[in-house]
């Protein structure tokens, strides 16, 4: 009914039930850990795979050491939603001390994934109850800061953790993550991060195989 006002045919975009296939990731960390960059790299990796992705920070007065949150949505279709992510499909915690400071996980979907940057075990981190709420093999700890220190020479866990996330969720491939890392960084920093991401990928893959094998045995 509005066509006559417009010089070209009015297109009604295709409509479809949304939030069916959308995968939503929330990343918690501290200012200086590359939380926002991690969400961006994740979105670039999804984009490389031909999907739609929307990365955005929790907007605030960020400063070094303060809790920071960033978000990434991945979908096969264009993403229109602009609200902060609640009920995420995956949560990545870059600093485990945040688990005692803010609520990172209570709204995580029961079929979701939780990846924590820590050399400690689930029990040592006090996450036994959270693990019980999730499906087997969905909560994994990986010592990303230590891996980054060795692979990169700096304790920056963000790209390394994404390698773990690729293994844990299967949402992005390690190859497209490596491409995204190389688009974000250059030279030795890029290669160190790619190497660290690969190590975290292997570490997480080995961890999530174990419960499956245990069940099979």
């Amino acid at each position, binding site marked *: *009914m*509005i066509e*006559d*006002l*417009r*010089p*070209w045919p*009015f*297109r*009604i*975009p295709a*409509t*479809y*039930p*949304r*939030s069916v296939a959308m995968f939503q990731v929330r990343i918690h960390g501290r200012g200086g850990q590359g939380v926002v960059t991690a*969400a*961006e790299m994740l*979105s*670039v990796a999804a*984009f*490389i795979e031909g999907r*739609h*992705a*929307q*990365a*955005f*920070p929790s*907007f605030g*007065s960020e400063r070094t050491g303060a809790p920071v949150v960033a978000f990434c949505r991945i979908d096969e279709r264009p*993403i*229109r*939603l*602009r*609200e*902060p992510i*609640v009920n995420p499909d995956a949560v990545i915690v870059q600093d485990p001390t945040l688990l005692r400071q803010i609520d990172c996980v209570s709204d995580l979907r029961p079929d979701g994934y939780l990846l924590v940057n820590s050399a400690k075990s689930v029990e040592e981190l006090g996450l036994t109850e959270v693990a019980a709420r999730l499906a087997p093999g969905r909560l994994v700890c990986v010592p990303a800061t230590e891996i980054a220190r060795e692979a990169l020479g700096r304790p920056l866990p963000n790209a390394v953790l994404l390698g773990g996330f690729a293994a844990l969720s299967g949402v992005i491939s390690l190859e497209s993550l490596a491409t995204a890392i190389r688009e974000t960084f250059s030279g030795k920093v890029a290669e160190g991060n790619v190497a660290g991401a690969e190590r975290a990928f292997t570490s997480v893959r080995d961890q999530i195989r174990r419960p499956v094998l245990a069940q099979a045995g």
Partner: protein
Amino acid sequence: MLKQVEGSRATAEAVARCRPQVVCAYPISPQTHIVEELSQLVKLAELSGCEYINVESEFAAMSVAIGASVAGARAYTATSSQGFLFMVEAVYNAAGLGLPIVMTMANRALGAPINIWNDQSDSISQRDSGWIQMYAENNQVVADLHIQAFKIAEALSLPVMVCMDGFILTHAVEQVDIPDQEAVDAFLPPFVPRQVLDPEHPVTIGAMVGPEAFMEVRYLGHLRQLEALQVIPQVAAEFAEKFGRDSGGLVQAYRLEDAETVIVALGSVLGTIKDAVDDARDRGVKIGVLGITTFRPFPAAAICEGLRGARRVVVIEKALAPGVGGIVSDEIRVALAASPLFQAQGAPPVWPVIAGLGGRPVTKAALRRLFDEAINGRLRSLTFLDLNSRLIEAEVGRLSETPAGRYAEQRLQDIGVVAAEAR
């Protein structure tokens, strides 16, 4: 080229494709990344033939843009919030002098209290400054509207403000197709100014106009704005034909067929609204969306046409007129009342909803509650979406306990001064 890119960077690259000759800006959150990126493009000579001018304030930014424009240069600046308010005097001059400056507004709340987050109070506050105002739903539209903005501005000799929601769009990384240089060059020819300050041929631009002609100058400025209602759809059509993308032109319709309830909004909140409307449609609710892309000039006819079949209209606004309520909704009411389309059956009721002030997220859950209230006739004359009543109850209670006429004494007591008692 299609790429995954931050909204600010996409904006800067789209502006660079338009070959501005002068970029002058003062950084302010959330606009900063746009002008940082442009300064880098100039420095790296990826944007050639352009002078990037560091200025000492937003007032200087607009003043330099005015100077550049009257000297015949294609001029661009960007700002936000308090910075925009600081340049307002020059903002009116740019419009009054008919200078085709393009400015990005990274929409942000106005203080006090200070708040760096998004709403649209800044650009809405200067809706009558004589600038064309266009609001973008996503970063693709932001990029595309900037390319159209220069063409519209130069066709009409009027300044154009492209409004993008601060942080929500400026800091969102999503895929944007930045048009190729050749395609933009073919769409947007070099700037040919209508009037130029040239020492070889001295003229005066900006003379004083007294009571004998000022009204006429203003009237002609009004006519020029109305002319934009024809030019904007033409430019939008040409852009859609050449680039294959619809940027909204004056207004955009979404699922308006048989819609009894129509949600009207501007900017990035339209995306979340469309998702919420899809969900409602799945539940059998006859609901649709009318997005306003061009707010100035006000596309009254296009809006009335879009609302023709509506039984109720809900206007979601990211700005508040204190002591009044909605701003966009009031303008829509006036347009509906004056439209011949509604003479027979009467205009549908218009419900203003103030939402998202100072960065308060507008969520799908809140929109669903809002839609339900609207459909069941439970909306009040003015709604504040997701207002935390617990936060305000104590203060409102205290206000009601204060006897009328003693507000001043109450305030004096608050600062420790005892007012003289009348005996």
